[in-house]
């Protein structure tokens, strides 16, 4: 039990430092790498909570797909980092104050009435941990099958929207226009000419 606490507190401190790094680094590439570290640490903490499938999905989908997309966009946009540094400190005290207020409110909410949470904690047993993926899949394909379909549709929608937003048709590209080719009238294209036989 002591080992679990050591793991939790070390990974929790790494997660908090990585989250701070996301908002404090000036260079967006460093922020993205810091966010990757935060996601990996979160995945490891989810392993402690016996959500193995979601931990793997978090690392695969977020670190493997979404953060690579972020890094790709950051490097494609070619942002001027020196320009970013101005105007950062003006609003910073207000933001830090608001963040501290939100954190204090939430943490006070959890710890003032702690006896309500102690009843919750006693319910924990290892019933869910037998085969997390099997249980989650069973739940998804029986009880939540309609929501699963909707989630798939949302992903399809995201594909269509992101392609149609970023697609641009270039000028000056030589390509066939099939519509005009098919609807062309042969009488306009080919002219039959009677060639007179040369007098000889």
């Amino acid at each position, binding site marked *: 039990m002591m080992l679990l*606490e050591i793991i*939790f507190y070390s990974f929790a401190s790494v*997660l*908090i430092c990585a*989250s*701070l790094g*996301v*908002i404090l680094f000036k260079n*967006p590439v460093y*922020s*993205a790498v810091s*966010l990757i570290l*935060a*996601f990996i640490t979160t995945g490891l*903490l*989810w392993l*402690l*909570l016996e*959500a193995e499938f*979601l931990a793997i999905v978090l690392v695969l*989908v*977020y670190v493997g*797909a*979404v953060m690579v*997309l*972020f890094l790709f*966009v950051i490097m494609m946009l070619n942002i001027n980092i020196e*320009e970013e540094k101005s105007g*950062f400190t003006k*609003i*910073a005290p*207000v933001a*830090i104050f*608001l*963040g*501290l207020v*939100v*954190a204090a409110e*939430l*943490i006070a909410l*959890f710890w003032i009435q*702690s006896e309500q*949470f102690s009843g919750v*904690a006693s*319910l*924990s047993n290892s019933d*869910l941990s037998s085969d997390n993926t099997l249980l*989650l899949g069973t*739940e998804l394909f029986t009880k*939540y099958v309609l*929501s699963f379909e909707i*989630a798939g549709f*949302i992903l399809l*929608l*995201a594909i269509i*929207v*992101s*392609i149609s*937003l*970023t697609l641009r048709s270039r000028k000056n590209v030589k390509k066939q226009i099939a519509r005009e080719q098919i609807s062309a009238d042969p009488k306009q294209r080919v002219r039959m000419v009677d060639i007179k036989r040369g007098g000889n």
Partner: protein
Amino acid sequence: MLTLQSYLTLSAIVFSIGITGIIINRKNIIIVMMCTELLLISVNFNFIAFSHFLNDLSGQVFVFFILTVAAAEAAIGLAILVALYRNKKSISVSELNKLRN
């Protein structure tokens, strides 16, 4: 002893860091989107903690759907960002005032 409050406190700290990052950043929309991801991950943390301590799998199913929607949101947001940069040559939050006046 790791209780539910430990996990909820950690998630609250990450959530407030994300909110601070959204407010503090006026120059770069990409950082704002990354802070949105931080907020989503802390909420997912809450779901999984409750799912573990209440012994109910519905929380994990919800996290699955939130991950799906967040991935779609990131893809569409970055596409909007690319289109915006193509038109304005800037991704600064404070310069996005085309609707003003």
